[in-house]
């Protein structure tokens, strides 16, 4: 929800108005630099946001090594691997879109953003099936939780709490990404000057998407590839 607000607003910042230059700025360079600095500051808060979860994960995994290993066998490495590929590919396409935006190549941007958007949607669909599998096996933490055989209840529940907490939060970020990329695509399609005249809005969306991708790069080994 936090991220929703943060990002929705950042979207407002560069999405709603028509003329690219705001009155509080002297020139477009100052505005662009401000946007980029602001975006990085926002990404720093995002890093800290996930950071607390990663620290929690590390502490519990050190404490409950065996249970984490047993529980992680329940995650679907194949689906997780496909999702990793999907996200990495979408990161490439969004980079191509940013490049095209710098060159003011509208077709290139649209051709880059469409597969990015599709990748994001695919990711969530696959995620849905993964979650459904956990629910089917009662691996959802709560009163009805049943640990995988061989794992202690408490530690295993912590594993799945962390799993749902972290991938869930990441999933929310993907969802926001879909909205933002969709909006960006629409603005490019409509040739709105706010995006076409300057590449910075596109670059900001790109940065955000790379961040979402990066978080997953950490999540994948932590939940799917725990060594024995």
């Amino acid at each position: 929800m936090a991220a929703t607000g943060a990002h929705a607003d950042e979207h407002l910042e560069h999405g709603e108005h028509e003329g690219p230059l705001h009155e509080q700025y002297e020139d477009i360079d100052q505005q662009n630099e401000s946007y980029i600095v602001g975006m990085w500051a926002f990404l720093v808060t995002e890093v800290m946001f996930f950071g607390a979860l990663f620290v929690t994960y590390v502490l519990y995994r050190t404490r409950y090594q065996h249970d984490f290993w047993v529980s992680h066998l329940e995650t679907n490495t194949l689906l997780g691997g496909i999702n990793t590929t999907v996200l990495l590919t979408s990161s490439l396409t969004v980079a191509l879109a940013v490049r095209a935006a710098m060159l003011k190549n509208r077709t290139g941007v649209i051709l880059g953003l469409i597969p990015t958007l599709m990748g994001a949607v695919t990711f969530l669909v696959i995620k849905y099936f993964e979650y459904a599998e956990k629910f089917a096996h009662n691996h959802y933490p709560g009163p009805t939780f049943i640990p995988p055989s061989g794992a202690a209840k408490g530690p295993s529940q912590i594993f799945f709490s962390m799993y749902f907490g972290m991938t869930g939060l990441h999933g929310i970020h993907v969802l926001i990404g879909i909205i933002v990329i969709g909006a960006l695509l629409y603005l490019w399609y409509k040739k709105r000057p706010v995006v076409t005249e300057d590449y910075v809005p596109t670059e900001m969306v790109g940065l955000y998407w790379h961040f979402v991708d990066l978080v997953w790069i950490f999540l994948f080994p932590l939940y799917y590839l725990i060594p024995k």
Partner: protein
Amino acid sequence: MSSITATGTIPAAEPAEKNYLNVTTTFKSWALTHDHKRIGVMYLVTIAIFFAVGSLMAGLIRAELTSPTGNFLESETYNKVFTAHGVIMIFWVLLAAVPGILGNFVIPLMIGARDVAFPRLNLLSYYFFVGGGLLAIAAVLSGGVDTGWTFYVPYASLYSNSQVGLAVTGAFLAGFSSIFTAVNFIVTVHKMRAPGMTWFRLPLFIWSAYATSLIVVLGTPVVAITLMMMLAERTLHIGFFSPELGGDPVLFQHLFWFYSHPAVYIMILPSFGVQSELLAAFSRKRVFGYHFVAFSSLAIAVLGFLVWGHHMFVSSQSMYQGVVFSLITFLIAVPTAVKIFNWTSTIYKGTVRLHAPMIYAISFMGLFIIGGLTGLYLSTMSTDIHLTNTYFVVAHFHYVMVGGAITGLLGGIHYWWPKMFGKMYPDRLAQITAIIVFLGFNLTFFPQFIVGWLGMPRRYHYYYLEPQFQPYNIMSSMGASILGLGFLITGGYLIWSLKFGAKATSNPWGAHGLEWTIPSPPDLHNFPTTPIVTDDVYDYEALDAAGLSGGVVAPQGVS
């Protein structure tokens, strides 16, 4: 909101002048404004209301504690009252007050900008703040919260039978409000400075606001996610911290204090900045050791992230962990001491005028010295065993938070009031009130040091096992009445001045700084043309030489 529109209509008596307050007067023009000055005023009104609610809670606490067996509240209600006091005062007054009110109003003016970098984000931040605050008020009205502002697990997650969800969601929104404001300030300071406004020409208030924003950006997300994990545990039974669900309650404390100790500096650093401004302006002298004061803010911001464990010496963290935290905590005393010594030296050989803001600055020094030094008792590990969780801690952090942060806020509000509203308040009355606040504050909280040293635990509704605590509690309650009176008088004459105060010139204090070069109150766009900064910060010699402020002037409206 009504008082906002009221302030908006006041200068309308002189329709010739158009300023940010009267350029438009509709409700919508305020509610949807992008103007940093109006947003600052909106924060002022909102925070004043929250402060009044929080103070009311404090009054209830003090009234209840005059007797060892309580007077009129049930224990459950008492617990809800002190929780409401803590939550409202920390999340909706202290964390937002100086950045929200003074930061929003003054920062763009000080650096010669037309607005903050992201005005819309600024407005959104305000509504997050208000929305969160409304949730907190709703939590109080719909039964209250009885967890203490720290929301420690497993009590808050599995045992408390109160409106924890509403309050935590509110705090979460307030946290994001401060993140937005911080991002805004960081970008504004980096990118919006007027030509010639180099980093070392920045007023120290900007430096401290910048350091504060760094802490907010790095720390607040951690507490936000931690509170969300706690809430997930409470509502969905997704275990993170409770031993019953396989978790570790001490981990919650680590994550919580990782933010909440730096949060102390979020509250106090902006007031440090105000303090530097006040001492320079009312001693008519450059701040002594400008670079040291500026960098001590950054040092405090950095070190502030490495000391959270000193809240947990006796909470079953490892002994050696505690030793390291204690050591770093002692290190942080150094930049703090450096600030105090530099401020003292600023007054030396100055030309001191004891207007109300200066009285607040001096009282800040007195209270903060006590607040800071008593911190040493708590960072010394062995004395902390005895003193932690007692009224000694309560007194210590009130000296820092109220004696420091709120005194700084009051000083700053008195200093920039003429700029904000174009009116002078009765200075003599304000000086006397400042002294009443100082005395009332000391009478309230100094006895709490003693009663804490005697061993009275905090958050105690009854103390009938130790009736000898009573005299000190009565003293404290008497002091609270005086303190409350001081705040009431302050509110009274400030509101009075809006209608009846003398008109303020552009620079009533003869102070140095870009904000004093433009009319009071400023125009909508602050500066008619982008200013170009040519002189050093606090360069009063140049100011006097140029005769810009008429040398040492007596402010108008001084009774």
